[in-house]
C-alpha cells in the first residue's frame, strides 16, 4: 500500500519517516556482506489528544493524553513503532565463518501513539 503523505499542516503529527541505514556509515561494511544497508525508518511526531483516536493509538495513549490535559506534568503520549518487521543479514565473523540469520524488529512498518 502506498504510504500516506501527510499534508503540510499534519507534518508535525506522529507518522513514519524514512531512514536508510548505510552499514558503511557505521563501519559495519567490513563484516556485513549483504545487504549494504536497509530502510529502517523511524517514528516521530506529536500525539495530541484531539487526534489520538485517528493516529493508530493504543488505549493507553488515549488515557495518557487525557491525563496530560488534566495535569500538564504528565507527558504527552509518544510516537512509537506499532509494527516492525525483520531483516536477514549475511556476515562474516572472527572465525572466518559466513553466517546468515534474520533479526526481528529491525524495520519500522507502522507508527502510532
Amino acid at each position, binding site marked *: 500500500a502506498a504510504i500516506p503523505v501527510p499534508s503540510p499542516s499534519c507534518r508535525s503529527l506522529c507518522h513514519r519517516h524514512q531512514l536508510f541505514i548505510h552499514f558503511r556509515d557505521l563501519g559495519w561494511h567490513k*563484516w556485513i556482506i549483504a545487504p549494504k544497508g536497509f530502510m529502517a525508518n523511524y517514528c516521530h511526531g506529536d500525539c495530541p489528544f484531539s487526534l489520538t483516536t485517528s493516529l493508530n493509538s493504543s488505549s493507553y495513549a488515549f488515557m495518557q493524553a487525557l491525563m496530560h490535559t488534566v495535569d500538564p506534568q504528565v507527558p504527552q503520549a509518544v510516537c512509537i513503532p506499532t509494527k516492525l518487521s525483520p531483516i*536477514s543479514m549475511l556476515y562474516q565473523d572472527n*572465525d572466518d*565463518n*559466513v553466517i*546468515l540469520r*534474520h533479526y526481528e524488529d529491525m524495520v519500522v512498518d507502522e507508527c502510532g501513539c
Partner: protein
Amino acid sequence: ALGQTFQFQEDAFLRFLGLDKTPSPLKLQPVPYILKKIVQDREAAAANEVTQDLCYLKELGVRGNLIRLLADHGFYFYSPKISQDKFCLQKALYFNLSAVHEKEQFTMAQLGLDLGPSSYFHLGPDLELSLSVVQEPYRWGRSTPKPGRILALQSVPRPQGTLRFNLLDVAQHWKNNPQKNLGLLLEILVKDDRDSGLHVALEDTCAGLRRSLHASLLVVTLDPQQCHLPPRQRR
C-alpha cells in the same frame, strides 16, 4: 566522549545480536551462490511486502532460521613420498561448533568439498576420495601427526568438482559431545599409478588439489524460541 559512547552502544547492540565483539575478518571468505540467493529472495519479498516464513529455507528444503558456513581449521599432513604412500593428499578437517547455542536444533549439516577445476582430473591418475570421522586424538610424533581410531564415512571413486556429504548425525554428536569433535580425515588415494608415465601427472594433480581444495560445513539450525515447531500429528 562521543566515540566512547558510540563504542559502548555498538558493543551492547552487537551482544544483543549474538556477537561477542565487532567482527574484523582479515580475508573475505567465498560466499556460496545459495546463500546469496536466499538473501536476494528475502530482500525482494520484503520490498514487495510479501509475508515470509523466515523459519523455512525453501532453497535448502529444511526448516531453520540460522545458517552458518563454517570455515575449515584443519591442517595438511605432509607426505614427501606421494607415490610410495599412495596418498595424493591427506588433510584433517576441523569445524568449530562452539558458537552453536545449546538451544539451537540442527536441521542440516552438509560438508562441501570443492576440489577445484575438473581439468586436473581428465588426464591424471585414477584417484579415490575417502572421508572418515576421527574418534581418538592425534598422536604427535617427530614426523607427521597420525589420527587415532577413525570411522570410515564414505568413499568416492574418481572424485571431481564439488562434493557434498550429509553430516547431520555427526554434527549432532559433536554438538552434544564437544570433547569428541576431533574433526574428519580426508584422504585422496592413488588407486593405480603403475604406469610410470603417469607419475608426473600424479605430482601435478596432487599439487593442484592441495592448492585448490576448499572445505566448508554448511550448518542450518532452528531456534525453537524464534521458530515454533509444527505440532505433532495425533495418532
